[in-house]
């Protein structure tokens, strides 16, 4: 636990140091820039609320990837599942006319369903034809991208709009706001809690975890691998779908073009740095949301291009991952040295 924390903090620190190096080389003020970054993401209640809201898709797609990877399936389909969840929730919001107390849960369910259906396609292809989900989910991402684009350009196109988008959904289906805070964040925390419980406390979660680490052992132990595989794919698809649904319900309240474009690899990236841990996914998701939200302030105040954040994120991933490898080597070196000393005495 402590080692993980140190690893993460060191990774972030090194990455930001490298970022500062690049800034200095190009004649920017690193300290001022970072201050602007954190000021715009954490400086006041509004910024915090924004950061939290932006963290919703990051955390949920990250959770999707973490649970999938930790349980075995290589579900790389978060972008596609997110889009399908968003689409289904939007369609529900367009056609259903119900009071908020009923509509909201239904839309959230539709979002979950949309993602699960899409990951279910990959799961079935694997189940029936043994097609690796690693490739199918990647391809299905592209297909979902074009499919939703088609849907919002023809089927659900808002005639009054200048670019492909659906009309706004029923106002009863908007996630309520409490001051600056959007309640989608609460749904996100609930999702994290539920997933944490399933993963660490339930019978199924136990089986998933063990299958993820040693599939053959779990199989011989009587675990029904295929069924669990299905459930994991569906659950992780649903999580990504929820991310998409919440983006729509909390933000533009309609499906607009490129709504998921920026979450393409973020979920996977977060799962990787978090080493598939649930709590770590939440923390890194929040942190990456801070970076991405603050990038705006950084650009506005000090004119440092916001692309730098992409570089910093990638460096964090690399440094944290390398750090993990290095710390392990270091720990065993230390143990070896200690043992040698003991022996000498």
């Amino acid at each position, binding site marked *: 636990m402590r080692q993980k924390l140190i690893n993460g903090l060191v990774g972030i620190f090194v990455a930001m140091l490298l970022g500062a190096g690049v800034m200095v080389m190009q004649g920017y003020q690193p300290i001022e820039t970072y201050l602007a970054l954190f000021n715009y993401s954490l400086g006041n209640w509004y910024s915090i609320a924004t950061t939290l809201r932006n963290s919703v898709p990051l955390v949920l797609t990250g959770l999707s990837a973490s649970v999938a990877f930790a349980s075995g399936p290589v579900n790389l389909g978060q972008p596609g599942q997110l889009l399908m969840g968003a689409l289904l929730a939007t369609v529900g919001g367009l056609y259903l006319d119900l009071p908020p107390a009923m509509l909201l849960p239904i839309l959230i369910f539709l979002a979950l369903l949309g993602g699960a259906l899409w990951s279910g396609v990959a799961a079935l292809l694997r189940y029936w034809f043994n097609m690796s989900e690693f490739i199918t989910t990647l391809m299905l991402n592209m297909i979902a991208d074009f499919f939703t684009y088609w849907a919002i350009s023809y089927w659900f196109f808002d005639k009054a709009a200048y670019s492909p988008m659906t009309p706004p959904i029923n106002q009863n289906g908007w996630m309520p706001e409490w001051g600056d805070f959007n309640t989608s964040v609460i749904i996100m925390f609930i999702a994290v809690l539920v997933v944490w419980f399933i993963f660490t406390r339930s019978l199924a979660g136990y089986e998933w975890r063990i299958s993820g680490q*040693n599939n053959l052992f779990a199989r011989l132990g009587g675990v029904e691998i295929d069924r669990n595989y299905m459930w994991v794919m569906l659950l992780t698809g649903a999580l990504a779908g929820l991310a998409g649904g919440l983006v729509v319900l909390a933000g533009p309240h309609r499906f607009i073009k490129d709504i998921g474009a920026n979450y393409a690899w973020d979920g996977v990236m977060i799962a990787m740095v978090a080493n598939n841990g649930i709590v770590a996914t939440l923390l890194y998701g929040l942190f990456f949301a801070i970076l991405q939200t603050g990038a705006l302030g950084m650009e506005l105040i000090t004119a440092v291009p916001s692309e730098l954040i992409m570089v910093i994120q990638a460096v964090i991933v690399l440094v944290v991952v390398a750090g993990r490898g290095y710390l392990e080597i270091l720990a065993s070196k230390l*143990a070896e040295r200690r043992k*040698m000393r003991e*022996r000498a005495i």
Partner: protein
Amino acid sequence: MNTIIEMQGIVKVFPPNVVALNDVSVDFREGEIHAIVGENGAGKSTLMKILYGMQPANSGRIRYRGQDAIFHDPGEAIANGIGMVHQEIILIPEYTVWQNVVLGVEPVGLFGRIDEKEARRRVQARIQEFNFNLAVDAEVGDISVAARQKVEILKLLYRDVSVLIMDEPTAVLTPQEIPQLFNELRRLRDNGHTILFISHRLDEVMELSDRITVLRRGRKIGTVDTADTSKEQLAQMMVGREVIFSPLRQEQQIGDVVADIQGITYIDAMKRERLKDISIRVRASEIVGVAGVEGNGQFELVNVLMGLLKPTSGEFFVCGERLTHASILDRRKKIAFVSQDRASMGACLSASIMENVLMTHHRLNKRFSKFGGLVLDYAQANRFTEEVRQKLDVQMDSRQAVFRSLSGGNQQKVILGRELSLGAPFILLDQPTRGLDVGSIEYVHQQILRMRAESYALLMLSSDLDELFRISDRIVVLHRGRIVADLITAETSITEVGYFMLEGKPNATKID
């Protein structure tokens, strides 16, 4: 005779806390067969791997032909004339014999192209020179274990090594193949090769070697001339106490048929017949041993019984219930299973000890879940882990420690504890003592016999004939996927079983 290799004060630590070699000094002479003996885990392999450049020592010094020489990788060692055949055979099954032999020292033509003709010719020449019975173009995956071992030796001879390290070469051979190997080794020694020979089988060592070094728990106990010692003395040096081979098996009334394997045939994806008409009946209070050279269908038999492979034909019943096509979970209600491969089948090394103990029980035993089987009851799981720990006297730091942190023997204890407390009437044991040391082996044997006493039916596959003879009531022999013999242990001998293992038929000229 000249000393060719001196190893002085070698220390090797494996983090976190194994001292595999503790200040070991030993010297080897040119042109001798020098045996290194010791129990499992004594450090024999590690010592040789250090000499061979596969692992660095933490401290110590090596002199080779009078000069300081630390090899950093096997390539250097080979270049200097030291070669090693490993405990596990390390070849590439997809490659042919000649490809395996030349790998690393390939004759090449233009543009890095391998000169196949030349390579074959050279390998063939070596095969003839040493009179090995090998086909250069055979794929290594298709040849017998003994032949593979020859390929390993050939690989070194091809590189003109003068020092040959052999790590437990006899472990995978049948009794009949061993003398042949020994003859080859002797011939090599007479040609001037130095042979370092690792074993913990004292008979073999006494027969073959010129000198013997004994290791115990990472320390050198001594080096003796073979002529001046005895098996008993060696055993005492190895174990550090007198070894009492307690009488193990007690006569007992055998009960009804529990497991009934009827005419199982299995044909694999490449259309090879891996199992042919296997029928075995195991009764309550009976231990049936399965002998055979590795690769004669043991793997397939276990996998068919456990449901990992689908038999082409035949039936399998336990307690009258047909399990031929049952799901693994249904099988596990009737079968307890200890696999030979702890790391991949028997346990999840990266999970906690408690999570390992819980496996299978979590499904079969209502006690471990709450709310209609949805939520795990960790309190119960911990209690159960504690029970297993106490019952089998497992040494562990905490229940939450990763399974990997247990020593081999303790890992096996935990697995046995888990499986034997399932209460399944049929117990399938696949090499249950592989990789354990003498103490642990005795403990496992006692547990197995206890289950026999409690009227369970046991089927045990083992490549260790001594083990089979010590505890099983009957021995069936697998040869090329068939059962070629079904013998009462008390009425047969190791030699007879050995012939069945090798030839698939009794020796025409019985020697008994």
